[in-house]
């Protein structure tokens, strides 16, 4: 049975149509495997080979991979949640209640989105500290560290903008406090707050602005920087793994 499936899969991989999509074909030589990476728009960000030390658990704890995993989950659940969400006052809150009690699997998707967001913030911080203690920010990887800092900021901004969207008490007052922190910026604090909220108080305009930031601008920025972040790993000579040394 297993061999039938395998040979059938092999046959599909050798069809002309499949070969137009994945040019590397069905072989399992290193050449084929290299081509499978090089000729794929997403995988070609990575190098064809990696040091086997870099795949061990101890240097990275897989924190980067886990962060990316939560980001994937967030994109998938976020898009699904958008189908049942209106960014308007007070409909936004009613939509939360609908997700909880009316929409099939709505409460599960909302839970998954919220908990993954918490997990992602935690993992991004953990990833940063792990990279620091491993010394992986050193040349030639300086700029990738800087991109990482910006990704941390984008992650926090994504959480913050997402926090307002349910339009509940927690959301409202967290954003009231947050927007007043912006007011403390010297010279142009008031203008920044006005632009951020689209008015003088946290209201429908603010909700819409945060919605656009949360669903369009910040995710696009994050995807872009994540792409550069991975590409830089290859360009900087692969994941940094300290040599095993005795103290």
């Amino acid at each position, binding site marked *: 049975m297993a061999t039938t499936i395998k040979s059938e899969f092999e046959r599909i991989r050798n069809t002309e149509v499949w070969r137009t999509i994945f040019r590397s074909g069905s072989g399992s030589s290193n050449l084929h495997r290299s081509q499978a990476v090089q000729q794929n728009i997403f995988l070609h960000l990575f190098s064809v080979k990696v040091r086997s030390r870099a795949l061990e658990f101890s240097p990275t704890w897989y924190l980067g991979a886990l962060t990316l995993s939560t980001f994937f989950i967030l994109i998938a659940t976020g898009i699904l949640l958008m189908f049942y969400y209106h960014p308007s006052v007070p409909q936004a809150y009613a939509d939360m209640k609908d997700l909880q009690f009316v929409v099939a699997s709505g409460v599960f998707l909302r839970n998954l989105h919220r908990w993954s967001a918490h997990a992602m913030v935690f993992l991004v911080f953990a990833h940063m500290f792990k990279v620091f203690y491993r010394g992986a920010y050193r040349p030639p990887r300086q700029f990738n560290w800087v991109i990482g800092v910006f990704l941390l900021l984008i992650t926090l901004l994504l959480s913050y903008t997402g926090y307002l969207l349910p339009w509940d008490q927690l959301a409202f007052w967290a954003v009231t406090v947050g927007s007043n922190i912006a007011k403390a*910026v010297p010279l142009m604090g008031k203008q920044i707050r006005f632009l951020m909220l689209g008015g003088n108080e946290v209201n429908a305009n603010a909700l819409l602005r945060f919605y656009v930031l949360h669903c369009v601008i910040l995710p696009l920025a994050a995807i872009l920087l994540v792409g550069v972040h991975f590409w830089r790993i290859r360009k900087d000579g692969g994941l940094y793994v300290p040599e095993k040394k005795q103290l």
Partner: protein
Amino acid sequence: MTDGPKMKPELKMQAEVQSDVRKNPRRIAFILRRSSPYVKAQDDGRVMTYPTALARFIIALEVAFVLLVWISLLANAPLEGIADPMHTPNPAKAPWYFLGLQELLHYFPPMVAGVLVPGLVVGALIVIPYFNINIEGESLWARDRKRRLMIVGVALVLFCIFLLVFDVIVALVPTILIGGLMLWSARFSPESPKLFHRWLASKPLSFWIMSWFLVELTILTVVGTFFRGPGWSWVLPWQS
């Protein structure tokens, strides 16, 4: 990395049987000095990204997914009453990752806690890889031990007094903890008999600062999350 000469079928067979690069070197690209990634010669083994590394990533994805699905099935995301500008909940708490900041806002004016401190933290994080002192990773006490000991000691005392003046006991405790460890580590050298002592002695300044930041962040967040009640007063988590 483009393929070189067109391969004949029998050559292809050979590639499948013997694909160890170091045994059968084949030139597949010229690496020019200017365009090559900066890699020191290393003698460790390598594996293919596809499928080995990719499989590892997919396992990581599955582990994360399974864990989060379980959490989502067991615990509901919080949802309070509809937003009401006429009533501030008491205490009004931000999500946990901002509670360290909110704890700071309790002590300092918003200009300091909300703008200056986060700005400085982000700035400090960005410049880490651009300081030679961080890159060399030389032990803090390797040179100029006496002078450095004095500078660090004075800076620590001044900072502690500053925290005391603003009554920030929460931030003072980790500062004394890490600062004390740092000063204590000056007693040891790379020749100390105990491994832990040698480890302490080998640490550069950036290690101490980052560790202080990590402990500070953790403690402020934990205090903000579990030890703050109505009116941001001190409560014990099992009391409420």
